[in-house]
């Protein structure tokens, strides 16, 4: 687990608005190790998708990376040529909506074939054979016939499988999956999650699973980063995160997730709404909704601290309990903006 594939450090992504730049992500640090399954969980606006796109070197204008680094095995993803090379070969991404990544006017054969020929140097006939294998691997019946079809001829679940086949064609080491099951029906969700699990087991592909669903995290991931208001607020191996979440937001999220296996008459909820962007709230981004917030939380944003072995949290109250609050400084907002 020590060999790091992807290293994101102090990433800041800003979007210009009429009233000045707004941060989608502010000071995010995370990394993915070989063959690891990392969950990135958060609600809308938490910055999880922006982080994923930045990791691929794909932040769309007018959004701009204004600070930090993203490295793939030491090579910068902010170098356009490097990033293009790495994206096609070593890292692949799948999305919530397969139509976003599939070309609607190209047969499945051409889409997979293109990757195989350009990135892996396959000949045309060899590519066709491999494409059939790939479709078979992702569980598409009659792969030879379906290869000739267009994306719209597939159902939602099957289209998701096609996208996964395209992503795996380049034999990547890391698959970034941005809410890959969110738009699907429950029974199809289970199929696709199972497929990604099997593929990552058999092919040894690391997965960065971006999701809003703690159920997906619990069932799929080894380790998790909880994001809130453009920052990572907690980082932990999956089991302890659920057993004893450190950050009050993580705790609220665990308590408010509906589940089919427990009878509760009322779900616990978190009062208030998530912030619209990273600077919407001074101090800790969660403080207006936090039952434990004190004066310091309302002024200074807490840094992500390792409180125990592999247990990190960005929370002044936890830092106090572990005797780290005194020695730590709040995040220096101005220094980040300057970069």
């Amino acid at each position, binding site marked *: 687990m020590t060999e790091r594939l992807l290293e994101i450090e102090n990433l800041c992504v800003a979007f210009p608005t009429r009233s000045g730049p707004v941060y989608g992500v502010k000071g995010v640090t995370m990394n993915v190790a070989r063959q690891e399954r990392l969950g990135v969980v958060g*609600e*809308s606006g938490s910055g999880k998708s922006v982080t994923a796109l930045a990791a691929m070197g794909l932040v769309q204008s007018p959004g701009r990376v204004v600070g930090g680094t993203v490295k793939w095995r030491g090579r910068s993803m902010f170098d356009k040529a490097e990033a293009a090379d790495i994206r096609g070969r070593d890292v692949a991404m799948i999305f919530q909506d397969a139509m976003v990544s599939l070309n609607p006017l190209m047969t499945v054969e051409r889409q997979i074939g293109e990757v195989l020929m350009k990135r892996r140097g396959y000949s045309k006939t060899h590519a066709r054979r491999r494409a059939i294998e790939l479709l078979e691997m992702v569980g598409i019946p009659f792969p030879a016939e379906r290869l000739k079809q267009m994306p719209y001829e597939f*159902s*939602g*679940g*099957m289209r998701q499988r096609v996208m996964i086949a395209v992503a795996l064609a380049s034999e990547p080491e890391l698959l970034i999956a941005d809410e890959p099951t969110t738009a699907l*029906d*429950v*029974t*199809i*969700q*289970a*199929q696709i*999650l*199972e497929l990604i699990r099997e593929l990552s087991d058999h092919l040894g592909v690391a997965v960065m699973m971006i999701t*809003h*669903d*703690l*159920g*997906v*995290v*619990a*069932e799929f991931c080894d380790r998790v980063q909880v994001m809130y208001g453009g920052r990572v607020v907690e980082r932990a191996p*999956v*089991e302890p995160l*659920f*057993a004893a979440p450190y950050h009050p937001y993580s705790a*609220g*999220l*665990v308590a*408010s*997730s*509906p*589940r*089919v*296996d427990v*009878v*509760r*008459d*009322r*779900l*616990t*909820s*978190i*009062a208030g*709404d*998530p912030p*619209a962007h990273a600077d919407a709230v001074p101090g800790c981004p969660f403080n207006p909704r936090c039952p434990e917030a004190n004066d310091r939380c309302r002024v200074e944003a807490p840094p992500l601290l390792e409180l125990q072995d592999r247990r990190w949290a960005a929370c002044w109250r936890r830092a106090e309990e572990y005797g780290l609050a005194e020695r730590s400084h709040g995040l220096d907002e101005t220094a980040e903006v300057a970069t």
Partner: protein
Amino acid sequence: MTHAEAAVSSPAADDGAPTPSSSAPPIMKATDLTVEYVVRGRKAGKRTVSAVDHIDLEVRPGETLGLVGESGCGKTTTGRALLGRVPLASGRIEFDGTDITRYSKRQWRELHRDVQLIFQDPYASLNPRLTVREIIGEPLKLHGVARKGEPLRQAVDELLDMVRLPRAAAERYPHAFSGGQRQRIVIARALALRPRFVVADEPVSALDVSIQAQVIGLLQDLQRELGLSYLFIAHNLAVVKHIADRVAVMYLGHIVELADKVSLYRQPLHPYTQALLSAAPIPDPTVQRPERVILRGDPPSPIAPPSGCRFHTRCPLAIERCSVETPPLLEVAPGHRTACWVVQETAVPLPSAGAPA
């Protein structure tokens, strides 16, 4: 649950089903409800699709009936049919004992004081050009409850209080609000006329998890305060578990299982319900689950539904009879109905997680 004597009652004659709280007459009752759509295909020509196929449903006063199914199963159409928004191909709807099946547009408009709809998408269902006061005040004005001036102002303020929004929200436009706040506005508008029956069509599906819980809590509070009855439509069984008293599971236009919440989740009988439960990810890594039932393939197209039991093409338990005859929705345990030949023939409830993988 002991041995279930398969109480054989015809699915159409479902009056007086011996369930715990069935003493009160239903506030909304649909019998033999069928809704058809006409589909024009390039090759096949004109065809009718029964989106909802001869279903029976009742909602009792003060209860929440959950209606769960995947896309295309007919759950939304069912909800709309109960509100007179789609024409019926057959069947009968009664509201509070009155037959409303053949109500005219004018009669429906009048009835909308009593029956209302909460939409899924709080972004699409609010007019961006109107202030919150205008949005919430609209039904009050249309129905002449409060036309203008102080009475209208006061009524809107009270509705905002009711959904726990600050009164200052009234003068702002929808874009100024988050998804959760918008859904509160949608709820305030739906409840403006003090309806008694509300169809909530996936009211929290578009919201973040922490906000979902707030809105569900609000719906529960309002139900208690105002004595509302809900038909709560959802695409999975997780959210419904926290709000419904009874749950109906739909598959391709049919109700395949209907039971009170506790027995449905504790002992799901229909293989489709078992698959739905088994597919739901559980946010707890320590939960040991029995072997997962992962359904193969996609749901068939409602345009050409399979013969017999519509689930038989994906069912791990299907027997020959399933592809020929449609199983009726029969009571196999007190208050627990299912439409499955295998369950009905054995009449002994299956283990809760259907072992055959």
